């Protein structure tokens, strides 16, 4: 008995010893941090990414809920919405209907929230932060401090925007583009009062956050790549995040300028956007400004913003499709080329949002040419995804399902861009439901699918646990069907000329049709939204109670899966892995002879896989071997 106890205590001692050793080891990378420094004001890119993610999901829920409320009005114009009074108060008027001003506020906030807070901060903020250091082999971002600031500026911006929902005159309501003079004149609508001021403050903070984040992503990708991680070996995710950050860095300052001038016009009596206005029974003193100037400034950001939202989703998809098709991504170079091409072109197409603004027809011509060029790299990307599936061995994880869904949505929403980009055709369709259908499919839903796919795929790395797959499947199919049922019918309405941002269509003979279709779409929207609750449950439940994740659950090649299951601050214990090959050696012929299954991670030297190397890699293998031998000598 005594010996037994002795043995036990000895083993405990040994355990303890091991533990302290491990602890000492960790100590090399980071010192003990207080709760606040570790989880709140953290400089660890992984924690910051989770902060972006949780905040983004909060906003996604809110933005989605808003769309359900205005879909109720659109689908069931006669419905009494008394039951929403506890939530919306006086925004439900005496007759039990949604107040038209509040309808516009809902539409505006839905757009703002989804585009900026969910699909920019929630998507880029989460995955650029999480994946850039882990996939390029860096211990953290170039500046952890700026990274932390980036999140907290976003947080402050979120708080201001959230507060604006509760002010008496309501939040901003002039559409997410907030065109002046409507947004500049408080007398034009209640939403242009305090709500608009808060919108501008919030967006200014948001821009600061984006710039801090972007500068950090760019610097990190350029400077902190591990040994061997040349640009030509970067996973496509990183390429996408990198170009996204560059786009943001070049375009967001222009939005800042636009917002600043609008603030001046609102508060300091300047006339940048205002001229010859008679409103509320008086002629305003402003002369010489131009509302069109604002539109140019806004869309100079606004169009790249579409790609800021979309590119990360496409990058994530590239990674997931290759991994789960167990096949290299087709046309890596073409994919990189398309990302760069789209990035460049996105800056010179902005005025296609303004074909009917009264600008010079010659300008309209030029922008049509440029706009339709951008369809070519987009088409190349779609074809390459499809070819990647061809003769693969596809495993439908929830992430893979969402990625395939994304490609479908990207195509379906993309093709209508060919019509809208054509200025002669845009005249009829501009600001109708056709546009709503187009961008909700190609930008909204596709990017949202990319974000969800990314969450399913990297959840094990983020939380060390797996999400439930079956719930994931149900979530996917309900969402996928729901999204198509909501947005596909909008094309019919758009072709019939139904204008967007209409509270009700009953006033016009021309827009009397499609009553049933509108109701149908609203039901589909409610189903699609409810499906997100399944996801929310899966997400939070799995975070604490999910199955424990193995180190590399999807059999993936990229570096993040070589890090410990729950990586600490610093990501890798010991040396950072070195990179010897690209990220897409899936199902390489003869890999089994080298002792590998259907994937060879990036950190495996070519000289360890002599049988599976392609002819041009044999030479490289020799060089790598010589280099490593040299290195060993130096270190040894």
């Amino acid at each position, binding site marked *: 008995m005594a010996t037994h106890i002795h043995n036990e205590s000895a083993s405990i001692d040994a355990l303890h010893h091991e533990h302290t050793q491990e602890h000492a080891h960790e100590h090399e990378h980071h010192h003990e941090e207080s709760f606040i420094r570790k989880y709140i004001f953290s400089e660890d890119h992984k924690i910051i990414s989770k902060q972006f993610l949780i905040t983004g999901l909060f906003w996604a829920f809110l933005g989605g809920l808003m769309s359900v409320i205005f879909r109720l009005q659109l689908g069931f114009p006669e419905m009494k919405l008394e039951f929403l009074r506890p939530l919306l108060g006086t925004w439900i008027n005496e007759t039990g209907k949604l107040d038209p001003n509040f309808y516009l506020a809902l539409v505006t906030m839905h757009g703002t929230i989804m585009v900026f807070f969910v699909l920019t901060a929630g998507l880029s903020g989460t995955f650029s932060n999480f994946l850039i250091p882990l996939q390029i082999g860096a211990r953290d971002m170039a500046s952890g401090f700026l990274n932390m600031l980036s999140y907290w500026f976003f947080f402050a911006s979120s708080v201001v925007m959230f507060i604006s929902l509760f002010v008496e005159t309501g939040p901003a309501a002039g559409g997410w583009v907030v065109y002046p003079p409507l947004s500049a004149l408080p007398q034009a*609508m209640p939403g242009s009062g305090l709500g608009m001021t808060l919108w501008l403050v919030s967006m200014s903070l948001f821009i600061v956050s984006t710039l801090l984040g972007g500068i950090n992503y760019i610097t990190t990708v350029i400077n902190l790549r591990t040994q061997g991680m040349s640009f030509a070996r970067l996973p496509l995710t990183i390429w996408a995040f990198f170009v996204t950050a560059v786009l943001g860095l070049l375009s967001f300052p222009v939005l800042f300028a636009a917002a600043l001038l609008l603030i001046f016009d609102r508060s300091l009596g300047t006339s940048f956007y205002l001229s010859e206005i008679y409103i509320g029974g008086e002629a305003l003193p402003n002369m010489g400004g131009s509302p069109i100037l604002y539109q140019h400034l806004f869309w100079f950001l606004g169009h790249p913003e579409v790609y800021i939202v979309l590119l990360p989703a496409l990058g994530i998809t590239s990674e997931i499709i290759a991994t789960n098709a167990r096949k290299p991504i087709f046309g*890596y170079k073409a994919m990189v080329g398309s990302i760069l091409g789209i990035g460049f072109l996105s800056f010179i197409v902005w005025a296609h949002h303004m074909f009917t603004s009264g600008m010079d027809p010659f300008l309209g011509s030029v922008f049509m040419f440029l706009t339709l060029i951008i369809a070519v790299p987009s088409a190349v990307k779609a074809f390459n995804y*499809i070819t990647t599936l061809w003769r693969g061995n596809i495993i439908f994880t929830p992430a893979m399902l969402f990625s395939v869904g994304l490609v479908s949505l990207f195509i379906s929403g993309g093709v209508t861009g*060919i019509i809208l980009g054509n200025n002669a055709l845009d005249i009829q369709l501009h*600001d109708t439901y056709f546009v709503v259908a187009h961008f909700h499919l190609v930008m909204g839903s596709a990017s949202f699918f990319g974000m969800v796919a990314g969450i399913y795929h990297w959840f094990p790395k983020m939380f060390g646990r797996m999400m439930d797959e079956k719930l994931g499947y149900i979530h996917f199919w309900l969402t996928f069907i729901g999204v198509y049922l909501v947005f596909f019918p909008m094309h019919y309405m758009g072709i*019939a000329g139904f204008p967007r*941002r209409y509270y009700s269509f009953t006033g016009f*003979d021309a827009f009397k049709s499609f009553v049933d279709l509108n109701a149908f779409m609203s039901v589909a929207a409610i189903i699609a939204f409810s499906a997100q609750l399944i996801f929310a449950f899966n997400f939070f439940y799995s975070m604490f109670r999910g199955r424990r994740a193995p180190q590399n659950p999807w059999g993936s090649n990229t570096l993040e899966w070589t890090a410990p299951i729950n990586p600490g601050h610093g990501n890798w214990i010991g040396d950072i892995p070195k990179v010897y090959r690209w990220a897409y050696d899936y199902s390489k012929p003869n890999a089994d002879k080298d002792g590998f299954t259907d994937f060879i991670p990036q950190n495996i030297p070519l000289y360890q896989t002599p049988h599976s190397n392609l002819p041009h890699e044999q030479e490289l293998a020799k060089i790598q071997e010589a280099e490593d031998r040299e290195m060993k000598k130096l270190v040894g």
Partner: protein
Amino acid sequence: MVNFILGLIVCLILIIAFMLFRVQTIVSIVKGHPRVGFSNKVNAALMLILPIAGVIAAGWYSGIAAKYYLPEAVSIHGKQTDFLFWVAIYIIVAMFLVTNAALFYFAYKYQYKEGRKVTFFYDNAQLEMVWTAVPAIILTVLVLWGNKVWWNMMSIPEDQKKQALQIEIMGKQFGWYTRYPGKDNKLGRYDFRLIDEVNEFGLDFEDKASEDDFMPKELHIPVGKPVVLNVRARDVLHSVFAPHFRLKMDAVPGMRTQFFFIPTKTTAQMRAELGKPDFNYEIACTEVCGKGHFAMKYIIVVEEEKEFKKWYAEQKPFLENNPEYRGKGMKSLLKKNLADSEKNKKQKELAEL
């Protein structure tokens, strides 16, 4: 009470769903977790079944809804854009079907199978060339065609420009107002500082051209004759949208915009064809402008030239109805303002003394 019971039922359903979920999880843990299970087959099958069902449903609905989705074009340029539109629609529907079919078929066909040989196919210059070139060619054709139609719309031939009927349309919160040039076919000057409750347009009656301008309740235009809409806004952005005419132009405060078109069918003809005696051509607003954005309706009446001329002759100029505005204009307003400020200044000085 009913609400309470409903709530209780919902709670029960949620609890049952949660229990089922737990059981499922525990069973899957006990049974062990295969890399690829039966659900892969189910998902792959759905990848085939649902898109096919979707396409059938969309095709079926397109047939039903055909009578709603694009009203007949009743302007010359509208017929051109419609033709291009339908050609483009057929092209993009073809693209949509072919690429989505490939996507979902491959997803189904190459679903996971134990021991399937994956083709290590990562690059092919010819293929890349093909699918860069094909969209590029299709797009070039559409762009050049679209550009031609665009310039047909935007450049007005000199002779038509001269004989075109000039009409002004002004948007304000929340309605449209139109003004005709009267007998001289010249729209008079205006200034936003002259606007008041009666003189909605801010017409300057020191300008002779303003004297015979009239503002009707509806927009009348003669069929087959060129019309130039001069668009303006007096408070915030609006946008004139007349769906039947394929006409849309933003109304911008401080900047005049124009839209040129030739109507091809009278309201009476359209009523007869549709069998709807109360049919009217409408104008709507398509730039969000505030609370009443969805209710800025205005009627366009297209009629035979004879009827139009008769109607035109019957309209009374603004000045005839409001003779007190005769001679009022910017010059007198500025003079008055100047005198007022002088007076104020003097009074101030006096007060200071």
